[in-house]
């Protein structure tokens, strides 16, 4: 049976068919839908982990104990998981283990354009790079075979245009694999220097063996055509090459690392002019050049953003390169905090108090955009806390009094705990605000350890933030509703003034998970003085008119923030 599946759905299907038993992940665009779909197969145990490091450790434990396992994350997640991963390639696995890492060329929903192939090479892990949903499923099964044959975790790299594209997939049945036997093997699984010296030798030998075998691996394949031009490519770039240069000979690398030297040399000899077309870094190109093979690639396509067929065609047949889509004179439409978003009130107050805001990764990063413009820094998951602490230690208590760290509940669970512990341990007098909206918002509403529900929506233990802070020795923990602007302002003032560490939990569920939106507000034009106070919070449901403001009833969810800002009582719930 054929189905039209997202790349991410196809990966989940592949895990099902491959007999995977355990899957752990932290949500992150463009990888999130993989584990969401894995969770629909009762044959696989699946979970949301607090972060990617934990997910990889869970997958490693499962694999070592004899079950095929999966961990999924976005590209920057592998940085978090790099610690276990870089040694897992030494210990090897028992049953197959695959780590799916989704790169985001073009930064559709990410903070950088890092190329996972570079980390994979640094960790000596094989990497597969599929070009379609069908390949997502088929290659994943091959990845498990490679993992078991070469005793290594394997990286399965996708990019946004593969992860979030729907293409046709032929479904097959699940192969139910028995658990492999687990035996204690101290020399292999205990990463003490004496043991790992031996394993490092194994890693080197294994990689050489796989590189040799890669020359005949069916997923590395030459498509001979016109021999004037040959292109080495993989992943999404392969699709663009096939459309932009339909007559060119192509070497498609299904295994991106280690690279098949003999096959590449054969291909290079068979064509007059060799090009390497790849998204992101010159990963293949650098190695091919280092082998003394003449080729070009990044000098034509560059490393910025995504490749497209027209971008490639423009370099080869003189086709006109597409101009920028954002025609001047057409207003941009950046993403915004939703109507009724609990983060809006928080940023309004922080802005009013003119605080330095070290923010974090999540919907609340959008508080950086006008009109709130209320964020000083945002770097990576959890960095808000460490950076606020660093500012305090560099500039003293006066700085701490005008600085806050802001991060969401899910981000706090992911990477905020240790930063907060550092503050408590190292006598910080700073203020941390946990914007607790009871969900992992930006990635599309996944449950997390703080909200009391698991990946299936079943009730489970919830982290008690207040007690956690107390256990860390933090004396001042305040809970406040961000819809109550007066109280929120009072609490933030008090806690930033205080010469002791404090945590403010700004608690209100995400507007998109509230089942019953409130009554829409309306503007009474008789009372409205057109002062613009209500416009300061950047609510997409309010717009200026000739005479005052108007509230869009299809967007307003009745949070009432605008009414709290109005001095003239002009904004009221619809009668």
């Amino acid at each position, binding site marked *: 049976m054929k189905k039209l599946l997202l790349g991410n759905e196809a990966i989940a299907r592949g895990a099902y068919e491959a007999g995977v038993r355990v899957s752990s992940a932290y949500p992150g665009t463009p990888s999130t*839908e993989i584990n969401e779909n894995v969770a629909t197969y009762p044959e696989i145990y699946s979970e949301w982990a607090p972060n990617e490091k934990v997910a990889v450790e869970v997958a490693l434990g499962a694999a070592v104990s004899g079950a095929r396992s999966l961990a999924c994350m976005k590209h920057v997640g592998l940085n978090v998981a790099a610690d276990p991963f870089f040694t897992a390639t030494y210990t090897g696995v028992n049953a197959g283990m695959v780590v799916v890492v989704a790169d985001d060329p073009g930064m559709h*929903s990410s903070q950088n354009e890092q190329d996972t192939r570079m980390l994979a090479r640094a960790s000596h892990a094989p990497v597969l790079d599929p070009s379609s949903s069908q390949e997502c499923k088929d290659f994943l099964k091959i990845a498990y075979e490679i993992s078991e044959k070469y005793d290594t975790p394997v990286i399965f790299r996708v990019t946004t245009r593969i992860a979030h594209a729907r293409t046709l997939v032929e479904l097959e049945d699940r192969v139910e694999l028995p658990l492999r036997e687990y035996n204690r093997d101290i020399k292999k699984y205990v990463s003490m220097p004496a043991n790992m010296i031996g394993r490092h030798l194994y890693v080197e030998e294994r990689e050489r063996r796989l590189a040799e075998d890669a020359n005949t691996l069916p997923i590395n394949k030459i498509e001979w055509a016109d021999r004037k031009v040959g292109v080495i490519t993989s992943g999404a770039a392969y699709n663009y090459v096939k459309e932009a240069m339909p007559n060119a000979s192509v070497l498609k690398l299904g295994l991106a690392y280690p690279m098949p030297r003999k096959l590449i040399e054969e291909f290079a000899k068979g064509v007059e002019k060799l090009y390497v077309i790849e998204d992101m870094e010159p990963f293949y190109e650098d190695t091919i050049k280092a082998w003394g093979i003449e080729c070009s690639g990044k000098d034509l396509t560059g490393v910025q953003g995504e490749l497209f067929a027209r971008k490639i065609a423009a370099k080869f047949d003189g086709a006109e390169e597409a101009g920028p889509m954002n*025609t001047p*004179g057409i207003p*941009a439409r950046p993403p915004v905090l939703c109507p009724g978003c609990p983060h809006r009130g928080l940023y309004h107050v922080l802005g009013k108090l003119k605080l330095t805001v070290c923010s974090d990764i999540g919907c609340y990063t959008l508080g950086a955009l006008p009109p709130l413009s209320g964020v000083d820094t945002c770097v990576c998951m959890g960095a808000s806390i460490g950076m606020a602490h660093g500012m305090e230690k560099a500039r003293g208590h006066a700085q701490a009094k005008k600085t806050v760290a802001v991060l969401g509940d899910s981000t706090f669970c992911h990477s905020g705990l240790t930063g907060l512990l550092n503050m408590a341990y190292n006598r910080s007098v700073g203020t941390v605000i946990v914007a607790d909206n009871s969900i992992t918002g930006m990635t599309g509403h996944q449950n997390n350890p703080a909200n009391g529900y698991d990946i299936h929506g079943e009730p489970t233990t919830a982290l008690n933030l207040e007690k956690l802070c107390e256990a860390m020795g933090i004396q001042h923990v305040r809970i406040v509703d961000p819809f109550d602007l007066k109280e929120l302002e009072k609490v933030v003032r008090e806690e930033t003034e205080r010469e002791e560490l404090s945590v403010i939990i700004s608690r209100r569920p995400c507007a998109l998970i509230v089942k019953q939106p409130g009554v829409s507000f309306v503007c009474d034009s008789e009372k409205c003085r057109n002062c613009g106070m209500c416009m300061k919070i950047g609510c*997409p449901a309010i*717009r200026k008119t000739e005479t005052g403001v108007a509230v869009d009833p299809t967007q307003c969810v009745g949070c009432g923030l605008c009414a709290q800002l109005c001095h003239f009582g002009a904004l009221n719930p619809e009668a």
Partner: protein
Amino acid sequence: MFNIVIVGVGGQGTLLASKILGQLAMNNGYDVRVSEVHGMSQRGGSVVTYVRMSNDAPLYSSIVEQGQADIVLAFENLEALRALPYLKPDGTMVVNTQQILPMPVITGATKYPVDCLERVEAAAKTIKINAVEIAHECGTYRAANVVLMGVCAKMLPFSADEWHKAIEQCVKPKFLEVNINAFDRGYNFK
């Protein structure tokens, strides 16, 4: 081969539209590629979804690039204007005549082009429809996306029955009737 670009504002239901189109093409033996947008721009930003279907040449890319679209389905006026470069010279713009103000307009940093639709009409063959109002009459303004599907259906080689079937496969049973009604209203729109 048909290339369709669906543009709108995050939260308007463009993903359901692309899902229905993809399902329809697959049901009819076409090769199909759909490229969706997930993540940050879904929070009220511009969203672009590509649908490509072919029953002759093989498809590789999931992206419709500038000058390649047979149809642009715009859920919002400004997004229609922004998406004009996607259209082939003889392509058709279907636009839901709704205005959603982007934040830079709300803050007063820039103005919403008053002649937005005129510029679209001057540049391309355009079908304008107030899909939100029609959907509202069918029972929910959320079905505006399916009203637009109905308009689009007239330009693609599939019967109304085939469309109904694809819609049935893509929406929850309790929303089926309202969506079929919404589709038919769009299909019969003149």
